[in-house]
């Protein structure tokens, strides 16, 4: 086993690898592939919605596109991308030689490609792929579902197993493998946010597995968990789903918070403001995520006491979230700021995520939600948090760390072009969706009245711009790897302070085989 000193040759390097950097790389490439796949589904959706009337696809296929877009983006693109970052960066940030459970690490990645191949293949099956929305509410996803739903259930189970294993690995690594002297309150923010995220994942992925198992029983074994006709309750599904689903959206956003908490201090050349309060705020958000799930269900007919509880709890989330935003801004205040591409994406993330936070606060107001619920206002809201909040942070992270990964510097001009085109395209896509939502356009419809036509056309144009800009991103990454200007300074960025900036650039195959000395 020559792998002790360097990577094996050929395909087996990737199949059998237990190296956190290799696995991180595979996660990142896989998630980028899924990002393009999920993005192409979005392009089909926006092309159909470009004008009123049915032009390109039929409603049945449109529903499959909205469903698969959501599933692929959430489970295939964003989550694995952050796991990829965790794999690459957590050991290097805490001074560990690798992840605690390297073989499990290999397995948790290699579950994903066949799983998503299976999920994507449902589109070619008789009756089509899942068409019930990524939230797969019963009974549309049980009694009324296409036969491919069973494959969908299997895929959800598999990705759940992968996530749980990945999280256990991260928890084990952070808890056991920190370099001597690195106390919890000295860990980089990215590590903290991932530790909390990993606990959330371990807590809620089994709940999702429970939900899909109940679906499986209802579909194939004659139970009636979600069918009132047999004594069950369709609303039960929603409670179980959102008990998973709300923590899930924080699973997506917390590591993104972690990324900007690294990037902003580096490019402000000033330590992160309010580190302790950042840790407490992140923990509070994680705790609150467990007691707000029914704000996704304000119109479901809950008793008023439940409605009020969930409204108050949801509004409370604004407090720790606001604290985080204030901390980031105060970090920049009186700093010495340069605006390289990672910083541009990080600032835009803070800005646009906060806009999504505002619409989130509006959505939290239960009476007003009777007008917002299931309208395009909601679509606008969660794309401000998911795309600007998570994907912008991911772009930021890739530009930030790619010199460390590859030893090559990306093209700054192209990076900035990617940023500005994304920024404009994103806002052109999603800002008008607030308007059509408020004006009464429901989400998940393939066709609409003429009064929504103009904003929808803008939205589609924006989406095509945003989509195209991601190809520029891909091109820039590939070009960096093949033709990038070599960098060898371990620090890469003048303001970098965390441990990964102490190892050589590019990071060697094995780092911190002996733990670093912490001052």
């Amino acid at each position: 086993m020559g792998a002790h000193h360097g990577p094996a040759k050929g395909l087996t390097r990737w199949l059998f690898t237990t190296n956190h950097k290799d696995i991180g790389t595979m996660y990142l490439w896989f998630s980028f592939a899924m990002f393009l796949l999920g993005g192409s589904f979005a392009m089909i959706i926006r092309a159909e919605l470009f004008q009123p009337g049915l032009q390109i696809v039929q409603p049945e296929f449109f529903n499959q596109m909205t469903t698969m877009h959501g599933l692929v983006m959430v489970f295939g693109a964003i989550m694995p991308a952050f796991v990829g970052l965790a794999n690459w960066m957590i050991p290097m940030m805490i001074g560990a030689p690798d992840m605690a459970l390297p073989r499990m690490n290999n397995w948790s990645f290699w579950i994903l490609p066949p799983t998503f191949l299976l999920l994507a293949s449902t589109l070619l099956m008789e009756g089509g792929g899942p068409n019930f929305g990524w939230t797969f509410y019963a009974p549309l996803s049980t009694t009324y579902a296409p036969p491919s739903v069973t494959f969908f259930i299997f895929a959800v189970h598999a990705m759940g197993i992968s996530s749980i294993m990945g999280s256990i690995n991260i928890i084990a690594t952070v808890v056991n493998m920190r370099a001597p002297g690195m106390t919890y309150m000295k860990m980089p923010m990215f590590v903290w946010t991932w530790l909390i995220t990993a606990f959330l994942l371990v807590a809620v992925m089994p709940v999702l597995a429970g939900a899909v198992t109940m679906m499986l029983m209802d579909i194939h074994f004659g139970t009636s968990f979600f069918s009132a006709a047999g004594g069950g309750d369709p609303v039960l599904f929603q409670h179980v789903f959102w008990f998973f689903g709300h923590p899930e959206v924080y699973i997506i956003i917390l590591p993104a918070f972690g990324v900007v908490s690294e990037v902003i201090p580096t490019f402000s050349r000033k330590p992160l403001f309010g580190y302790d309060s950042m840790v407490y705020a992140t923990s509070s958000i994680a705790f609150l995520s467990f007691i707000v799930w029914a704000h996704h269900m304000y119109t479901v007919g809950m008793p008023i006491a439940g409605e009020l509880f969930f409204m108050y709890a949801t509004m409370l989330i604004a407090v720790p979230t606001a604290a985080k935003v204030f901390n980031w801004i105060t970090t920049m205040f009186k700093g010495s700021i340069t605006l390289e591409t990672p910083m541009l994406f990080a600032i835009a993330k803070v800005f646009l995520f906060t806009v999504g936070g505002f619409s989130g606060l509006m959505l939290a107001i239960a009476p007003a939600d009777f007008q917002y619920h299931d309208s395009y206002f909601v679509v606008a809201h969660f794309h401000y948090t998911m795309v600007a909040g998570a994907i912008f942070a991911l772009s930021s992270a890739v530009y930030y760390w790619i010199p460390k990964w590859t030893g090559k510097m990306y093209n700054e001009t192209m990076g900035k072009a990617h940023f500005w085109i994304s920024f404009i395209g994103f806002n052109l896509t999603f800002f008008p969706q607030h308007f059509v939502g408020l004006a009464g356009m429901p989400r998940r419809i393939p066709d609409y009245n003429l009064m929504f036509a103009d904003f929808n056309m803008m939205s589609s144009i924006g989406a095509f711009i945003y989509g195209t800009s991601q190809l520029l991103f891909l091109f820039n990454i590939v070009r960096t790897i093949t033709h990038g200007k070599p960098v060898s300074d371990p620090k890469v960025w003048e303001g970098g302070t965390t441990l990964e900036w102490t190892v050589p650039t590019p990071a060697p195959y094995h780092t911190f085989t002996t733990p670093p000395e912490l001052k």
Partner: protein
Amino acid sequence: MYLQAKRLFKLALSPVLMLLSLFSTGAWAEQAERWQTNMTPGITEVGHQIYDLHMWVFYICVVTGIVVFGVMFYSVFAYRKERHQEPATFHENTRVEIAWTIVPFLVLLFMAVPATKTLIQIYDTDDADLDILITGYQWKWKYEYINPNGDNISFFSNLLTDGAEIANTEDKGSNYLLEVDEPVVIPVNKKVRFLVTANDVLHAWWVPALAVKRDAIPGFINEAWTKATETGVFRGQCAELCGRNHGFMPIVVNVVEEPQYEAWLGEKQAAAAEIKELMAKDFSLEELVERGKSVYTSSCAACHGANGEGGVGKAIAGSPIATGAMKEHTARVVDGVPGTAMPAFGSQLNEVDLAAVITYQRNAFGNNMGDMLQPVDIYKFKKGQ
């Protein structure tokens, strides 16, 4: 071409409009209109309260945004490296951090109080003047007016928009996808309670102008209410994904003066009485086929094709069911096919229409069976089960 050019022009202007919309407050027309950027206050007191609440929270967000983003962009511009070489080193300030935890909390209280008040009102479904049971079906709404002193009247409300408009072969009307064959009619200034449920999957009944949105859940009945203060026609849509034609099951509410409402109700009751009479009538084949044709168009054509050629549903033309035993055919239509998209029409159509549509299917699209069913046969079929 002119319209296209006009739209492109407006598109170019849209950023300006977006900015303007941030500062405009009210005076929205009650009906949604082109370039509408804000929620309608609607025609109910609750709707106005919701609108005010929405604007109140929105303004708080705008003010917060101006301050927060102001500091942020100021920092980005003022503390650029070329202007500010030496970064400060401070990294905490307990007082400031406590302050910016408490202040947002206090601001939230100012939102929570009015929100709670409005919510309590939304939940007060007592003392209604009129109850309407709304049932969501894939993909239409059924309205049943509860009459404590006699028979309920009920009817289905289907999308009226022509398939040719959807397929872009005809120009789209201004109520494209928001028009139905039978609107629900309610009296103005009366408290109307909606009892909302569903027959198959989840749906949600949403009319923005009434500020009502309630999930329709099979096996459960949800309550909502409204009290319209103005007459007019108000439109909405199903808000919960319910399958293929989720985007094609609109809602139209006709708010009318009370005498008009009474007159409409009278007509409906008379029509129901007529159906009752027709139940006993012996129809001729021609009569059944003629009636059946219109029933087919509104209830069957969406899945089975306008000419029985099939689509989502199987073809009717030459089908072994429609050209086979009458009893099998009747069972198929009345009971539906569980586990498929074919619903049980026994609960959706009256006996007369069922007899007519079955007869029509057996004698149209080249199916020349020549036999027919009378309403009483349907009645007997249902009883016999």
